């Protein structure tokens, strides 16, 4: 098995570490970078809880090796709020619309929503539904999640 030195940006800060080839990006973010807000659920690409943003794109961090993230910019849910604790618009909308119950799927949902509405993008209802279909919420709290997404996108339900 091979080890690899990687350098990347995690939530705006530089990280330089050695990783084992088989380590997933999700594991690395949790164990190597203290980002326990990255929730590893199924670890085989089904549930969406581990979704993070890599170079602007929402991806499942269990389906990418840490070594593949060398040179990239990674954002997790822990990198969204302002330094003074002010929530990001997505986080605020999730709170306002009671879009979380147990909270396990929440960081992934928040990251997809963040990527979807980045740069003031206004996804349509169909686009929101299509993107959110990549997340499982075991509390079945989808209505609240959709309300938050619609609010952000300015879509009237």
């Amino acid at each position: 098995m091979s080890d690899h030195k990687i350098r990347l940006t995690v939530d705006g800060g530089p990280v330089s570490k050695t990783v084992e080839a088989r380590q997933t990006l999700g594991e690395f973010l949790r164990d190597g970078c203290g980002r326990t807000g990255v929730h590893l659920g199924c670890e085989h690409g089904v549930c969406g809880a581990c979704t993070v943003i890599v170079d602007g794109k929402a991806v499942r961090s269990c389906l990418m090796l840490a070594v593949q993230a060398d040179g990239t910019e990674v954002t997790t849910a822990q990198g969204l709020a302002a330094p003074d604790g002010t929530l990001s618009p997505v986080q605020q909308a999730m709170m306002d619309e009671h879009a979380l119950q147990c909270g396990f799927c929440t960081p992934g949902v928040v990251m997809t929503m963040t990527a979807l509405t980045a740069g003031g993008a206004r996804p349509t209802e169909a686009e929101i539904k299509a993107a959110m279909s990549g997340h499982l919420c075991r509390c079945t709290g989808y209505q609240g999640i959709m309300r938050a997404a619609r609010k952000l996108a300015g879509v009237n339900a």
Partner: protein
Amino acid sequence: MKAAPFDYVAPDSIEAAVDHLARGGGESVVLAGGQTLMPLLALRMATPSVVVDINRIAELSGVSRLDGATRVGATTRQATILTDPTIAAHAPTLAQAVRNVGHHQTRNRGTVGGSVSLGEPAAELPATALALEAMIETRSPRGTRRIAAGDFYTGPYSTVLEPDELVVALHYPDLPANTLTLVHEVARRPGDFALTGFIGAFTVDGGAISRARISWLAMGPTPMRSPKAEAALVGQRVGQIDLDEIGRLAASETDPMDDGHASADYRRTAGARIFRRAVGQALETR
């Protein structure tokens, strides 16, 4: 879950990647988008000794035009297909198909070449390659070859690719003018694997069908064409086609499985029905 240990290499040229595959002697595996390989590694259904990551090979990615065809580099992301202007202009069927592939989050990593070379029988991109008569360009220590999609699949997840052979691009030939293309499937939820589905390409000349291509997904050990139904359609006048009969004929040429998701009977019946409905609507509203 943790993958079994392996060595990882990320070559920056096709030659180096092929060289790694050749030296691996069948114990190495290509990592493209990883949206299937990573679960297989996590579940230890795949335990390769070397993972050859082809994502750092710049020349493997991108969409271009070549000799009356649209050339899609193997590591072009599925998400790129949805927004690429060359695809929209020359191979829009591919974008229709990709909308049904996985989810937003997996399409951001998943590649066209990865899905085509995996050969999942229920996947959209292998069936699309078959319906569009794509050519699969590969590289190995023996050089470059082009394989017709119709000759590529030998069984579930099985292709004619040699262990040291890498898919480098797909070539989708331009369709004749006045060709309608359709992508329809039945799945439990959007993004799930299809229970049945088809890709159709129908050319209409002077009010009659002059060329038909039909391929099915989830209807056999490989994506499958329906040559009898294709032949039966040619020469028929739009509006006078017995689509019930053609749909049944087309589905009868497949070889679906019974499994926990659906019976073979269900797949044939539902397949024939979505065929009739979708083709009927498309031809009427043309």
